[in-house]
């Protein structure tokens, strides 16, 4: 066998471990499939209006109709096409998830680094602020804040950004406290490196893994919270391709007709199933990434 660069060998080892676990493979495949659906949304379901996130509907008839040739997954209340809603809803979920988690990461990392590296008063102030954010149940605070800044999908995104960063700050800070005292940091300081340089070339890369694992697990939670807010009627408007909104359109149809008690099962079952698969994918992948990267677990 050809000798590989140690870094490449390590990567190959990591990859092999990742692919050996069937759950990780399922998680990865789910995320990839959803990613493809989101990317190819304009091809899979060409938009009918200028705003592609508006679901086309044929008529205003209130009763959902079962899957048919024209509507492969049936229609929701008011004849919104289910398949269209779910496909563009996937795109919307990716946009929300990635945007929110990226913003959370950005804020969380900067504050975590400041707190962990400088310590003292800066640390005290930042950590007390995170304490306050942790002192109120998440969904409850998100609801109140959405009401305060005005309802809508944009408000939901802003709220999730404002509320989501403290967990990253906490994790990063405690990681940095461990790294800060290590010899290689002292060496860097002795050789005259600036604070900024030490922070971003020595400290952050070493503490980054735990934060990234948290981020991958949090995409699922973020989507669940956004969907819950939309379900409660605080998110997007009726007819928007947004998963929570779609489920809230379907919630009145749990009781079927007298002859067929499961008459509307598709309208209740399908959208929630799609959300669950999406969240499941990210959770499995987050777990897998942790198992692979965590040095305590990986060599087992």
């Amino acid at each position, binding site marked *: 066998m050809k000798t590989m660069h140690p870094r490449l060998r390590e990567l190959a080892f990591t990859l092999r471990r990742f692919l050996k676990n069937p759950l990780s493979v399922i998680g990865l495949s789910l995320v990839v499939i959803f990613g493809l659906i989101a990317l190819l949304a304009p091809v899979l379901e060409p938009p009918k209006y200028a705003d592609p996130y508006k679901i086309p509907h044929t008529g205003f008839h209130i009763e959902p109709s079962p899957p048919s040739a024209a509507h492969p997954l049936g229609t929701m209340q008011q004849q919104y096409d289910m398949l269209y809603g779910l496909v563009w809803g996937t795109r919307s979920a990716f946009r929300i998830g990635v945007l929110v988690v990226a913003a959370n990461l950005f804020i969380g990392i900067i504050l975590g680094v400041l707190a962990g590296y400088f310590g003292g008063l800066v640390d005290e102030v930042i950590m007390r*602020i995170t304490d306050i954010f942790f002192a109120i*149940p998440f969904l409850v605070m998100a609801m109140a804040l959405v009401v305060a800044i005005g309802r809508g999908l944009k408000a939901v995104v802003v709220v999730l950004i404002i509320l989501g960063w403290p967990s990253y700050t906490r994790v990063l800070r405690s990681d940095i406290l461990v790294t800060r005292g290590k010899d290689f940091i002292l060496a860097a300081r002795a050789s005259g490196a600036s604070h900024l340089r030490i922070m971003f070339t020595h400290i952050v890369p070493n503490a980054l893994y735990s934060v990234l694992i948290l981020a991958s697990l949090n995409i699922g939670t973020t989507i*669940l919270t956004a969907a*819950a807010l939309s379900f*409660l009627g605080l998110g997007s408007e009726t007819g928007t391709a947004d998963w929570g909104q779609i489920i809230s359109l379907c919630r009145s149809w749990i009781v079927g007709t007298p002859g067929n008690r499961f008459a509307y099962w598709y309208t209740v079952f399908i959208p*929630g199933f799609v959300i669950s698969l999406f969240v499941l994918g990210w959770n499995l992948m987050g777990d897998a990434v942790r198992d692979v990267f965590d040095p305590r677990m990986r060599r087992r």
Partner: protein
Amino acid sequence: MVLVLIGVSLLVFTMMMLLPPGQRVAIYVTNDRVSPAMMDALIAKYGLNDPAPLQYFRWLRNLLHGEFGYSITASSPVLKGFARFLPVTLELVLYAAPLIILTGIFLGTLGAVRKDTAMDHVTRVLAIVGFSLPTFWLGLLLMMIFYGFLGIFPPGALSTDVRNIVFSDPTWHPYTHLVTIDAILNWRWQVFWDAFYRMILPTLNLVVINSALIMRLMRSSMLEALGQDYMMTARAKGADRKTLFRRHARRNAMLPVITISGITFAELMGSMVITETIFDRKGIGWWMAQAALQLDVAAIMFDVLFLGTIYVVVNLVVDLIYAYVDPRVRLS
């Protein structure tokens, strides 16, 4: 802890200040229709255009005097509405919380003890599913199957007949306002059964979603405990399997579970908002959702303050329990 509470009040106040004064007036008035001229007068009367710090201290003073304003969704002062909604939520928590903890610990332990058997796989799948299912979807599915298809477990906290007994029968004594407990004290089995019956589905919903975190943590910390040296010592001294698992492994494995029970509580509050909305139980969570939809500022802010305070207290209690249970902390 006091510092955190002050922080929470500041945060709630800041959220409130994001609203225009016209909407904040709603906290003080009982009437929906207010003319523009009256609006200005009211804004001036309650000083809603004053500097923020002044308003904060005035608001805080009102809170400490128990004046929380008027809630349109409860159509009564906030505290009165609260007294009406709290027992409904409390009762559900009373049944769901112990079940969540017991299910989590039991299945987590089972998974670790029988690692890599079918039992282990089943509990792991359960935990992952509980993690990934949206609370509102599971609730709707349960309703569709049990109420829609089988015609059992109807939504709502009480049937009409029983409501009549609880709210207008002169021989009914509401000792605790928790219907199932009052029913036993009043010796009214029909009432007990009705209230209990309608609590089954919401409880199931909460247990499936909220025991997942405990289950996962219990499994991994139990596995860690089983691999420790003291386990081998105990085995070498001839302890049987039962003693090994119960006295040596599980006791140690419980410690991390105690630390996260605060988080479980917060998640339970979140699921409560959704569960009560879906199963039409008029408790704090339902109230919160209604208030958010109808811009009932007084109710929302009160609920956030209340839940924040409770959560801070719960975390304190968790710390105390931890200190008591862990001999390393207790004896140092």
